[in-house]
């Protein structure tokens, strides 16, 4: 009996998390959080980007091109993180059938796509002076390109299926499959050493990490990009919830008129 009691207590303790999947609660909470999120995003991005662009020295091996790191690394990090967020939200949809989680995954896809495009473009521009080419079929570059194609496929699938629950089911499966490439995009450099791309820029290993003078503004830039992602996903999820509610009310009106 005490065991059962403890299990129920533990379940109740975590049940409050699922309450946030209620659309009304999500709209209330996100409405309160958004002004703070916008302010934190603007502040951290401004600090990271201004510090990185104007107040960092040239690097011995990269010259002033090191300043590209402040847009390339945060966007690449967010491209992969966005897909993992979509994976978690998709799994919640598949297991618990919470509509807000499916809509949050849908809302994150365009943001993740733009982050992937930024990482690919800035990587190509940086690659030309460093490697002598805009593009190479390097493991990390190739896995990033495939990740970009997965993002496009994910959004196309949402658009192609009329029934929202079926669309959520199929896109969730695609999110699970695409996670392999999101994982490869992050760790391809460690698996295959023959590529041109360097190893991790940020690492817990002090010897691998970049110098502090570049690292601190980079941390701010990454926090800024992360907050930008959360802010945009909140706004886009609210948009999706409103669209779904509007659609439901339109259907009800048509049925009443018929």
């Amino acid at each position: 009996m005490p065991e059962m009691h403890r299990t129920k207590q533990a379940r109740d303790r975590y049940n409050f998390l699922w309450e946030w999947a209620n659309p009304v609660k999500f709209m209330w909470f996100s409405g309160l959080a958004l002004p703070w999120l916008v302010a934190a995003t603007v502040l951290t991005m401004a600090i990271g980007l201004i510090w990185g662009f104007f107040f960092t020295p040239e690097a011995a091996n990269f010259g002033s091109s090191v300043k590209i790191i402040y847009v390339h690394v945060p966007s690449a990090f967010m491209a992969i993180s966005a897909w993992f967020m979509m994976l978690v939200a998709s799994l919640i949809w598949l297991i618990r059938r919470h509509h807000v989680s499916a809509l949050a995954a849908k809302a994150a896809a365009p943001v993740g796509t733009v982050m992937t495009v930024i990482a690919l473009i800035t990587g190509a521009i940086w690659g030309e002076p460093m490697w002598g080419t805009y593009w190479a079929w390097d493991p990390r570059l190739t896995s990033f390109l495939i990740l970009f194609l997965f993002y496009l496929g994910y959004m196309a699938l949402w658009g192609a299926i009329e029934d929202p629950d079926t669309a959520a089911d199929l896109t969730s499966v695609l999110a699970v499959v695409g996670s392999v490439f999101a994982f490869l995009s992050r760790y391809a450099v460690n698996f295959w050493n023959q590529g041109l791309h360097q190893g991790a820029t940020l690492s817990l290993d002090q010897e691998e990490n970049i110098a502090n003078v570049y690292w601190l503004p980079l941390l701010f830039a990454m926090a800024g990009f992360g907050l930008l992602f959360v802010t945009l996903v909140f706004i886009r999820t609210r948009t999706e919830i409103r669209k779904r509610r509007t659609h439901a009310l339109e259907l009800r009106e048509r049925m009443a008129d018929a």
Partner: protein
Amino acid sequence: MPELGKYADAVLWSWAATLGLIALLIVMTWVQSRKAKADHDAIEARRKGKES
């Protein structure tokens, strides 16, 4: 403006592309959000009008 030397083109194009794409994403998100809210408010108002 910092001295960018021979990498000026690469640095400036990278930053311009990034800021341009982020600005486009923010504007699109904002416009879609405003439209969804306007559509939602209109149908809610119509529904409440019919009820009262």
